[in-house]
């Protein structure tokens, strides 16, 4: 059955929190328009500064440049940065997903090559899972990587690849063997250097006016054989574990947080009853989701299996990220139709369709939860 341990952040994190706040105050110039969505705002310089402070790869082993800090300490840093609306997209995937993937499954040489660069905020990673004909049904990927001597020849197309035009590397899920009865066999993950290996990257404009995701085309792209992450053929197990671990962080319920801040500002010190209720309603949800998310961080710290709990936090959090702007919209006072509230609201509303898609759709997550309940 589902279990959320009753954990809270230990007091030790308070100095760290104060440090992060001090850092953010000093670096305000990096985010004149705060946005809490982790995909918005790619700032290599800002990421390098975070790296200097030891706030990337915080809980990785020291031998790879990590800080060997706790999941709670990492939690504090990530939530502070997101809530402030600082630009994090450059290092986010490397820190949250690619680094931990290499730590769990990568070869020793891969860890030594990539992890120290990630920690310094100098190597940024993209995720190459989706393809034109492969969305939720990830095992249907068609991009191939065929071994030829000491190299792999890659052919195929990845799509919706966030920041492929800005990042250094992409980890692609590919077929290294022809599809067979067992759809999950013959898949591997492979690292491609986006600047040097010859993949063609074409940005795709999104409806919010940004160009953050891309099409990445591989036409006979040759990469050295040691770029396979871990064992060839182990791709499915790796990719599912990667997705499970990245699901429960504060970025899953804080994407719309700045709308809340501007709502409170717009309503002022003496809100009308319906304004106060809207503020309280949003806060009640955020406070509760934060507890749930911290609980998962605590269970990760204690090496517990949290696949279902993490999916649940993402499902609940992503849905609320969409509801938040709607509650705010209806409550916002007349004067808020101009100024910071409106600007933040509109920007977030236009991003909101993506909240319940990226990282696994709401429907897929509900399936994961249902399995956890023993229904499938």
């Amino acid at each position, binding site marked *: 059955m*589902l279990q*959320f341990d*009753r954990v*809270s*952040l*230990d*007091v030790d994190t308070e100095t760290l*929190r104060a440090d992060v706040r001090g850092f953010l105050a000093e670096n305000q110039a990096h985010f004149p328009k705060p946005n809490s969505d982790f995909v918005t705002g790619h700032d290599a310089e800002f990421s390098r500064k975070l790296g200097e402070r030891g706030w990337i790869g915080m809980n990785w082993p020291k031998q790879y440049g990590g800080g060997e800090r706790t999941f709670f300490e990492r939690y504090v840093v990530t*939530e*502070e940065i997101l*809530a*402030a609306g600082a630009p994090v997209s450059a290092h986010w995937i490397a820190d949250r997903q690619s680094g931990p993937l290499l730590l769990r499954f990568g070869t020793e040489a891969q860890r030594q090559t990539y992890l120290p660069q990630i920690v310094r905020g100098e190597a940024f990673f993209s995720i190459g899972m989706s393809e034109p004909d492969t969305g939720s049904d990830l095992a249907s990927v068609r991009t191939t990587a065929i071994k030829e001597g000491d190299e792999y020849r890659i052919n195929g197309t990845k799509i919706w690849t966030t920041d492929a035009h800005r990042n250094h590397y992409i980890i692609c899920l590919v077929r290294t063997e022809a599809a067979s009865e067992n759809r999950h066999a013959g898949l591997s993950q492979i690292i491609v250097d986006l600047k040097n290996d010859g993949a063609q990257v074409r940005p795709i404009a999104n409806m919010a006016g940004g160009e953050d995701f891309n099409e990445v085309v591989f036409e006979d792209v040759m990469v050295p054989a040691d770029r396979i992450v871990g064992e060839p053929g182990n791709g499915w197990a790796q990719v599912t574990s990667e997705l499970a671990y990245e699901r429960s962080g504060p970025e899953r319920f804080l994407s719309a*947080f700045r709308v*809340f*801040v*501007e709502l*409170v*500002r717009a*309503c*002022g*010190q*003496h*809100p009308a*009853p319906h*304004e*106060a*209720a*809207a*503020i*309280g*309603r949003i*806060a*009640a*949800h*955020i*406070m*509760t*989701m*934060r*507890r*749930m998310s*911290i*609980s998962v961080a605590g269970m990760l710290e204690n090496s517990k299996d949290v696949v279902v*709990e993490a999916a*649940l936090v993402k*499902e*609940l959090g992503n849905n609320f990220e969409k509801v938040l702007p709607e509650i705010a919209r209806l409550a916002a006072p007349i004067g808020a139709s101009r100024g910071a509230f409106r600007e933040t609201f509109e920007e977030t509303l236009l991003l909101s369709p993506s909240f319940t898609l990226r990282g696994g759709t709401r*429907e897929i*997550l*509900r*399936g994961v*939860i*249902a399995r*956890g*309940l*023993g*229904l*499938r």
Partner: protein
Amino acid sequence: MSETQSTLQLILDSGEKIFSDHCDKKLLDQAEAGVFAENLWQQIVANGFNQLGTSGSGTTAEEMYAFIMQCGRFAVPLPIAETLLVNCWLEPGEGLYSVGVVNNGQIIDVPWGRKADKVVGVQLDSDVVFVVEQPAVVEQRVNLAGEPRDTIALPDDAPTVDVGLDPFAQLALTRSNLMAGALQTLLDLGITFAMERTQFGRPISKFQAIQHALAIVASEVAAARRAADAGVDGLQSERFIPEVAASKARIGEAVTVAAEQIHQIHGAMGFTHEHRLHHFSRRAWAWRDEFGNEFHWQQVLGNHLAAVGADNLWSFIATRG
């Protein structure tokens, strides 16, 4: 740590044992017909569960509220939460005690006021309560779930006591925990029914629409559980009121979602009197409105945060939690 864990587990386990033995559908039906569950009450007293959380009992407030959540899980038809709070506020005793809200010279909505040896009247935004010994029943009423909610006379000379911590909010917290418990049962009933009921040649749990409905409910139940814990953790801090506000407001919303989905899953069977489901859904619905509904507590929290201000909003949210 491990010792308190085991005390808690012991309380929950023996509570569960007593409730599964005694608190069945028949007892619930009788209680709703006005019959007091005397036997069950005696079991509670004999096990000392009416003393949880009092200073002399060696148990904590956390354990008391966990037990109240357990009562919600079984829809226990007794004023246990009220008796426990009165024992915490006043000199603890062995009687049956209850609590209501002072309104126009009366104490209204008193659970089982007709059976109470003592009734306490609380007021909004005041730590001072009125104590009425040998209470006189003005009117017998029930809530949506058929739970007695009586009107009690408030004599002019009723003594007052300052209980220190907002009593109305403490009562709201009991409702948060009762709802969190009932929500767990709603989910359990939904899962069991979905796996047993067959249509189109397979259990309805195999249909994706049903799976997703249960996933939604599971999320709400998990959220309610964390929100209830948060309110209890707030007892020790200056954040008590906003934490209770968040819990009562959040859990009320969870009830609305969960009760609707679980009834839908049960089809017509869940609409019958014979099925147990309504004992839990009606209680959860009723508890949303007792001691401040969602809107009330959202406003309390919202006004608090408006005073905190936009620039300190995050600091307020990001406490130890």
